[in-house]
């Protein structure tokens, strides 16, 4: 299970390219399934692989629901017959329009340990400077904060549209029956929104598990864990281990499908579709 000496020239050693001519990587011949098996076994013993999986999984599981909750709060706020709602909506959607590369660079700068704005702001309220992307424990929260800022606007717009679609008669009927605010929220708003929430949850998870551009622009330490997509890319094109990278790619895909199925399965418990009705008749 050793990799023999490389005569590979890295195709994407971007820092070392010269403009004169292309360098095409020669890669290990992909030879039937023996290599595949070997690669899967390697995957199971490579510590960086596990770090990548752990990081990516935690990211998806924390980031997506957090973003949805934040988006829900803002959407509820905006639904209160606020004046100039179009302008607010545009404003909140703005970070989602910013390209991921720009977002990544911006937040890398904001989170810079010595000179970043965030640490300055924290210093004003007396909290010491934090390492953010350079601190092993803060890598995940940093990415989560960055992604939430970037994406929650899109979710807000979708949820706002969903809120506007809830017929007000439902609330009136509930009020007549004596329902309080929380009850109305829990028994009308959430169920009526649940299809939209469900859709956003699934799409968000699938996207979160494939994070790439942000990781490309924010060089975190490999020890702290890279995101899976970038890990695969690095293995394939910087290290030349295409077979291994493909194997990891398959594992990632299985992970994505498994999580999607999980969420689908759970959906029967909490997603309410108006078109389907079960329970007491008439």
């Amino acid at each position, binding site marked *: 299970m050793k990799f023999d000496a490389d005569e590979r020239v890295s*195709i*994407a050693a*971007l820092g070392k*390219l010269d403009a004169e001519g292309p360098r*095409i990587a020669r890669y290990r011949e*992909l030879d039937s399934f023996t290599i595949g098996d070997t690669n899967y076994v390697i995957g199971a013993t490579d510590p960086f692989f596990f770090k990548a999986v752990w990081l990516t999984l935690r990211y998806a599981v924390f980031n997506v629901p957090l973003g949805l909750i934040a988006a829900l709060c*803002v959407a509820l*706020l*905006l639904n209160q017959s*606020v004046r100039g709602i179009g302008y*607010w909506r*545009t*404003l*909140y*959607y*703005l*970070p989602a*329009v*910013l*390209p*991921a*590369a*720009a977002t990544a*660079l*911006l*937040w890398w*700068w*904001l989170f810079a340990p*010595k*000179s970043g*704005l965030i640490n*300055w702001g924290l210093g004003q309220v007396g909290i010491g400077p934090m390492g953010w992307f350079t601190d092993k424990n803060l890598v995940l929260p940093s990415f989560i904060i960055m992604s939430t800022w970037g994406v929650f*606007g899109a979710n807000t*717009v*979708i949820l706002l549209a969903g809120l506007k679609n*809830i017929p007000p008669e439902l*609330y*009136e009927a509930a*009020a007549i029956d004596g329902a309080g*605010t929380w009850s*109305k929220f829990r028994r009308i708003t959430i169920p009526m929104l649940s299809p939209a929430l469900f*859709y956003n949850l699934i799409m968000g998870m*699938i996207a979160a598990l*494939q994070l*790439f*551009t942000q990781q*490309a622009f924010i*060089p975190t330490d490999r020890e702290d864990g890279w995101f899976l997509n970038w890990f*695969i*890319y690095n293995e*394939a*094109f910087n290290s030349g281990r*295409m077979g291994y*990278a*493909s194997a990891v*790619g398959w594992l*990632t*895909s299985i992970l*994505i499908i498994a999580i*999607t199925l999980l969420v689908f399965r759970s959906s029967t418990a909490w997603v309410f579709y108006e078109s389907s009705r079960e329970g007491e008749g008439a």
Partner: protein
Amino acid sequence: MTANTTTPATTAYHDPLARRRLIQTIFGRILIYALLLFGAALILIPFFWMVSTSLKTEDQLFVWPPKWLPDPVAFENYFDSWKQLDSIAPGLTFWRIMGNTLFITVLAMFGEMFSAAIVAYGFARFRFKGRDTIFFIMLSTMMIPATLTMVPGFLVWREFGLLNTYDPLTLPALTAWGPAYIFLLRQFFLTIPRDMDDAATVDGANTVQIFFYIMLPMVKPAFLAIGVLAFQGNWNNLQAPLIYLNTTQFFTLILSMQFFQQSLSKSAPKWHYMMAMATMMAAPILLMFFTAQRYFIEGLNVGAVKG
């Protein structure tokens, strides 16, 4: 306070709680707007900081406490950043980069738009054996993550000998590779009554003419939304150019930025240049957003089928 119904402000009798309700309402309103403003600040401050940094000279960057407004304003950052990139990768001027990027983006955008429309038209209007099966299979390809196709795609293009060209980035767009786009357009096409087709046929139109003169114009919002999404997708795409392009002359905008960033030191990168580049990269998309907002927002519903 969160009721969606409004109660009449005037009543026929004196309401002892009227004043209290009024105060509650005012307080509630203030709270709502305060929260919204707080959120707006959270959103706008990073944007402002990005532009502000891009206009600073290098010594202003690390001033402590940080300066909010650069003084002097260094507009030349927008030119110097590209000049510095040029010095690392000779021949890669800003215009060259823009040319590359626009070529790929525009070509791929039109490719995606029209191929998706044609395929959706086929699914919506023609009956053939296995149509629904094929549609379902196409939809299920949406589940295939890009991660998986990264390496095999590269290998396939290598066999064609088309690495380091623009073909891997533009040709696939012509093959209607966007199941979400096809899905959306098909739904819209299905809402067009067949009477229109029939009327056109009676007037002597063939299928192609029906497509271009009747079907497409009727789904213009969705069609343009897909155009916007496709433009955005290709403009922001890093993975594909990163894998396929080798020679710096061919680099797209985002790839050039990444290349530039790799060449700088990690602990003290030239933030002002990076922010300038980031702003320039974001500018067209932001501009598109402000002029064609509804298509962005419409594009959010791609895949979320309505009625």
